[in-house]
């Protein structure tokens, strides 16, 4: 409690988010039912911007006054350290993109009903994601996970009049519930064998005092949690729900699931592996199985995601499968963490995640506008985009070649870092080769968009107009994608200065 009183000001961003959630809920109650609630989006965006200012202020204070050392609140149930700070920034940035997308056009959010709920539930999901990336206690982690998951279930199903959205929400809630149950079951074994919910204490007892017969339960808990996280982060072979959910929901919500959820769950996996399960990887007889399980998930995600994406004709489904493949790429350094001794792990992964957020948010921004105007989600909605709006076609091409990992884009540099990290070890060569081969495979479907945009005649000749909020989102992600490719050292130096 003392640390909370002393360093509580570092949690100002969280306080701003909680405060805005409560304020927006109360405001929703006191405004007459007939009034439009469109402006809630602006208020939520304002809250997000306020929180980002606070986050940067907190960062500077932490760096200058506290020498950037990790701070633990509530018996180290909640951490403030470099990893949580960076992931919180990523999540907040993604949320601001999602808000811009939602404000862009009506089809993107909820139509006219439930505008207020839509926006404050997004803030609740943000809070859950933040808790997920910054806590070091099983119970707090689970509450954070459920905050994020519950809010996302509701947000997917909030457009009740749309049959597809209802189906997507139903699938998401059932499979998400099963995944949560698996995670909880795994946690119960971990707690039962170590007698602690704190990740660092679990690390200690796994290293020192676990009974030899109890170690089997620890492995069981590891695999149970792996299943659960596989579902939540949408890695193969637990990916079956992803495409249906993305297709059924709006582009803004799909961008939300592709960025915020994945970043938060990834932060959770990293914490759990590095703070708790790491001693298991140094035990002789079983470490190969654990490594192969992780590597298998990464390899399968890359192959399954890219192969299934080849057959898709629906833009959001295609993005869903491409997202599975991207998760496969991102998991590569994590699976090799014991072999590379964690060298450059955070720098490489966080760089790719930043590039990933920018290009995915940008791509969904373009997709949302183009499909909304065409009235269809098929890729042929992009036919002749070059004639209808050259700049938009150019932006989309940049995002796509970045996703495909072509030079002169952030995606290329990021993938290059991932590959060098993989080739540092013998086992990683296999992963690196799979990554290169599947990347080549992915050119086929990313260039299907490009072919439509440049070489097909448009169905409707009129120009595509873009609302200015979407224009801001696309500009930011476009500039970011190119700037990150030209000046990658800026981000790397920033990460280095945080000791990552």
């Amino acid at each position, binding site marked *: 409690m003392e640390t909370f009183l002393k360093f509580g000001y570092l949690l100002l961003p969280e306080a701003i988010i909680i405060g805005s959630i409560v304020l927006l809920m109360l405001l929703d109650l006191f405004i007459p039912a007939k009034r439009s609630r469109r402006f809630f989006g602006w208020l939520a965006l304002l809250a997000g911007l306020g929180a980002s200012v606070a986050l940067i202020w907190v960062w500077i204070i932490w760096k200058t006054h506290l020498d950037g050392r990790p701070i633990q609140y509530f018996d180290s*149930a909640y951490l403030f350290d470099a990893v949580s700070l960076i992931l919180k920034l990523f999540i907040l940035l993604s949320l601001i993109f999602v808000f811009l997308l939602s404000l862009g056009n009506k089809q993107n959010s909820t139509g006219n*009903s439930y505008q207020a709920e839509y926006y404050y539930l997004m803030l*609740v999901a943000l809070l859950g994601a933040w808790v997920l990336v910054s806590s070091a206690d099983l119970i*707090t982690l689970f509450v954070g996970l459920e905050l994020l998951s*519950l*809010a996302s279930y509701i947000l997917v199903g909030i457009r009740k*009049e749309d049959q597809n959205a209802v189906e997507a929400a139903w699938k998401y809630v059932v499979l998400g519930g099963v995944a949560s149950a698996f995670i909880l079951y795994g946690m119960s074994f971990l707690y039962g064998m170590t007698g602690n919910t704190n990740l660092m204490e679990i690390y200690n007892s796994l290293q020192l005092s676990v*009974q030899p*017969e109890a170690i089997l339960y620890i492995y069981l808990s590891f695999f149970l949690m792996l299943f659960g996280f596989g579902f939540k982060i949408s890695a193969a072979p637990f990916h079956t729900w992803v495409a249906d959910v993305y297709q059924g929901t709006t582009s803004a919500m799909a961008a939300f699931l592709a960025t915020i959820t994945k970043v938060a769950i990834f932060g959770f996996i990293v914490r759990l592996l590095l703070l708790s399960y790491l001693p298991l990887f140094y035990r002789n007889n079983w470490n190969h199985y654990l490594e192969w399980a992780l590597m298998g998930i990464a390899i399968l995600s890359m192959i399954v995601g890219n192969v299934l994406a080849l057959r898709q004709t629906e833009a959001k489904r295609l993005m869903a499968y491409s997202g599975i493949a991207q998760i496969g790429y991102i998991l590569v350094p994590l699976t090799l963490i014991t072999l590379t001794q964690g060298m450059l792990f955070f720098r490489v992964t966080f760089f790719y995640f930043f590039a990933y957020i920018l290009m995915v948010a940008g791509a969904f921004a373009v997709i949302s506008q183009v499909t909304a105007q065409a009235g269809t989600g098929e890729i042929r909605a992009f036919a002749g985009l070059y004639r209808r709006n050259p700049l938009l076609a150019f932006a989309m091409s940049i995002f796509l070649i970045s996703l495909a990992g072509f030079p002169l884009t952030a995606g290329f540099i990021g993938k290059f870092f991932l590959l060098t990290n993989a080739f540092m070890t013998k086992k990683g060569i296999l992963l690196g080769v799979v990554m290169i081969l599947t990347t080549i495979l992915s050119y086929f479907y990313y260039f299907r968009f490009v072919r439509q945009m440049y070489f097909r005649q448009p169905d409707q000749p009129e120009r595509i107009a873009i609302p200015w909020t979407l224009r801001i989102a696309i500009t930011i992600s476009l500039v970011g994608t190119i700037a990150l490719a030209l000046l990658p050292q800026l981000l790397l130096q920033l990460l280095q200065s945080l000791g990552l």
Partner: protein
Amino acid sequence: MTGEFFAFFILAICAIGGAVFMIHFDRVMHMALSLAFTFFAIAGLFFLLDAEFVAVIQILIYAGAVSILMLFGIMLTKHQEKEQTFTRTKLHQWLSFLFALGFLAILMSVIYLAPFTLPAGDQSLYSVNKLAEQLFKSGYVLPFELTSLLLLVALIGSIILAKKEEKE
């Protein structure tokens, strides 16, 4: 064959039986009742483990509130009494069955390969007072507070999703 073992056996059969019937019954009402039966049996298991507080909570919340709420919900809404037909393929059913069986086999083999040899802890250490102390004086304040937000979100979400739209 101690009395405890006997009681455990009966309660376990009740719990599993209730769950199996809950899946197998055709009518929603019967499903809810057999689920309540399972909840009661689990409360009994908690009593056997000297976890009186959890047992009472289990009866109050699950067997009491949740089951009653479900029954009210079923009685107050219209629902089809007729049997629903599922369109599942045989292959799908077999695959699901195999996966469930494999999972059970793994769990059982772990339990048999690694028996608990440690003696049971002293139960007097785990009183309700201690529970409250743990909850409010240590690191669990934060998840406790966040849970209130979680419940609020669940409440709002269920209202949004279940509310009937008025026609304009």
